[in-house]
């Protein structure tokens, strides 16, 4: 630990400094900011629509008109990749939000209840870990149609288990600390303590774990779309684009490679940032490295 993290820094600022001192983390963060801006604004700025076909043109190599070329239906690849990125990121964030909300509610309830209730709730989580969740998700997608909201609700509903464990552990550690007892002694109500004291202290681990959940969720969405069970063409996510590219890989390998590069780089950045956040907020794990 170097000396520039003085006592005057707030914990947040100190963690931020630790995060940004690693050059890779800063790059990952900048990459994600640029990607979000591009995927947010890119499809609108592009002169093409993501589903606009040009059957005369068919598949072409990159050119000044189409920076990443076109697919066999003459659709502009860059526009489709940015649009697909928007869908994939949306699913990733929304599903993680669903998982975090379920996990925080469940974990806090178990941690606060304690005793038998806690033991029973955690035993249920143990049992759920042995479930073949991927089967349930596939079944659900095959049955109820492939609606956008269903995708992230279904993914979120299976990804909350570890979050619940993290939150419960945190609540157990916090609830007997002096500042909580002091608040209670001052006559603070149950909900006041939960809302003002417990929740803010749980948020750090929740954010860290959530940032590590996003890439996993995006992979799951891509897998479902790849199997034809997620986002449906002509709408595009990165999973859909990769599936279309995989089908045409012999004739037009770049249709697979371009979306693949975008997807892998995003996963890399998210993983780096997640690890970086964990190290920054938990200096103990840093010292082990």
């Amino acid at each position, binding site marked *: 630990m170097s000396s520039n993290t003085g006592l005057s820094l707030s914990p947040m600022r100190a963690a931020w400094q630790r995060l940004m001192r690693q050059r890779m983390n800063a790059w990952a963060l900048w990459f994600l900011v640029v990607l979000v801006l591009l995927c947010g604004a890119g499809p609108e700025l592009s002169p093409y629509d993501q589903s606009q076909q040009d059957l005369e043109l068919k598949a072409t190599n990159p050119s000044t008109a189409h920076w990443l070329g076109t697919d066999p239906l003459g659709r502009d690849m860059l526009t489709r990749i940015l649009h697909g990125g928007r869908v994939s990121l949306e699913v990733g964030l929304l599903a993680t939000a669903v998982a975090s909300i379920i996990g925080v509610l469940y974990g806090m309830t178990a941690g606060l209840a304690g005793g038998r209730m806690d033991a029973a709730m955690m035993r249920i989580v*143990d*049992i759920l*870990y*042995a*479930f*073949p969740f*991927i*089967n*349930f998700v*596939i*079944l*659900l997608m*095959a*049955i*109820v149609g492939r609606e956008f909201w269903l995708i992230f609700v279904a993914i979120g509903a299976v990804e909350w288990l570890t979050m619940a464990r993290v939150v419960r552990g945190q609540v157990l550690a916090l609830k007997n600390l002096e500042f909580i007892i002091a608040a209670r002694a001052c006559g603070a109500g149950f909900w006041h303590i939960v809302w003002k004291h417990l929740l803010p202290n749980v948020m750090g681990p929740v954010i860290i774990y959530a940032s590590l959940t996003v*890439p996993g969720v995006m*992979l799951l969405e*891509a*897998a479902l779309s*790849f*199997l034809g*069970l997620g986002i449906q063409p002509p709408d595009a996510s990165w*999973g859909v684009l*990769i*599936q279309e*590219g*995989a089908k045409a*890989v*012999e004739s037009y*390998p770049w249709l*697979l*490679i371009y979306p*693949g590069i975008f*997807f*892998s*780089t995003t*996963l*890399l950045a998210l*993983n*780096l940032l997640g690890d970086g956040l964990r190290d920054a907020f938990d200096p103990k794990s840093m010292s*082990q*490295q």
Partner: protein
Amino acid sequence: MIRFIVSRIVQGIIVIFAVICITFGLSKMVPGGAVRNERFITEEARKAQDEYYGLNKPWIVQLGLQLKHYATLDLPESYHYKGRGVDEIIASGFPVSATVGGAALLIALAIGVPLGAYAALRPNTLEDRTSTVAATLGICTPSMVLGPLIALLFGLKLRWFNASGWFDASDWVLPALTLGIIYSAYIARLTRGSLRETLAQEFIRTARAKGASESSVVFLHAMKLASLPVLNFLGPAAAGLLTGSFIVETVFQLPGLGQFFISAATNGDHQLTIAISVFYAALIVSFNLLVDILQAALNPRIRLQA
């Protein structure tokens, strides 16, 4: 120990009971059944089919029948593959998935453990960084991107193997390679992290102090403890690998369990859907139990508790 195993088996039975109920409930949300895909069929024939499969009974009785099937191990017939028991279909798909998954697991261990150990023994050198970057890249390469590229290179360009299908004795190689490379990245990362942590512990210093050679310190003392997180990861991973990754079976068009499951789920073949889910759950439960027992065997500080 025996109490532990018994309690885990009870837990496993609860899991399988719940999996039957959930997949049954999900399946009943669609109009599926024995004759859904046959268009020209008389009302009587439909009734006879429903009667045959017990579909005319109230749903709670149907659920009871399902539970009885699995309790007595007298498994039902598939709706889609007429006259074939679901166990027969699993028996035809599982060897394909298990061959690919087992080979992938061996490839992953053969690449991952040495790579991770090599990096851990040379902390913060160029070799360490390179192998860490390679492992991170591996983790971030989805199988649906790597698979088609491997099929393109070794199947279509070099023509060493078939790009897809399950015809020749060597058809397991490309799908196993795809999965093996990706899993080896996880294993390398875990091995590096846990070996470095272990090497910093005091019993390692003791071993060195009593004059143990470097290789015996690393391979006998440290690796034993350092393999625990890897084992922990391998439990669920092995179950997933052996039952077939849905993605690689799709990419390489293998007639494995994953393919059977997807087509059963989309065809409304409830019997097969439930059976394959139960099979997966049973494998996950067994692998988790196996991992826990192995962990206790490797680390005397872990006590198995019911």
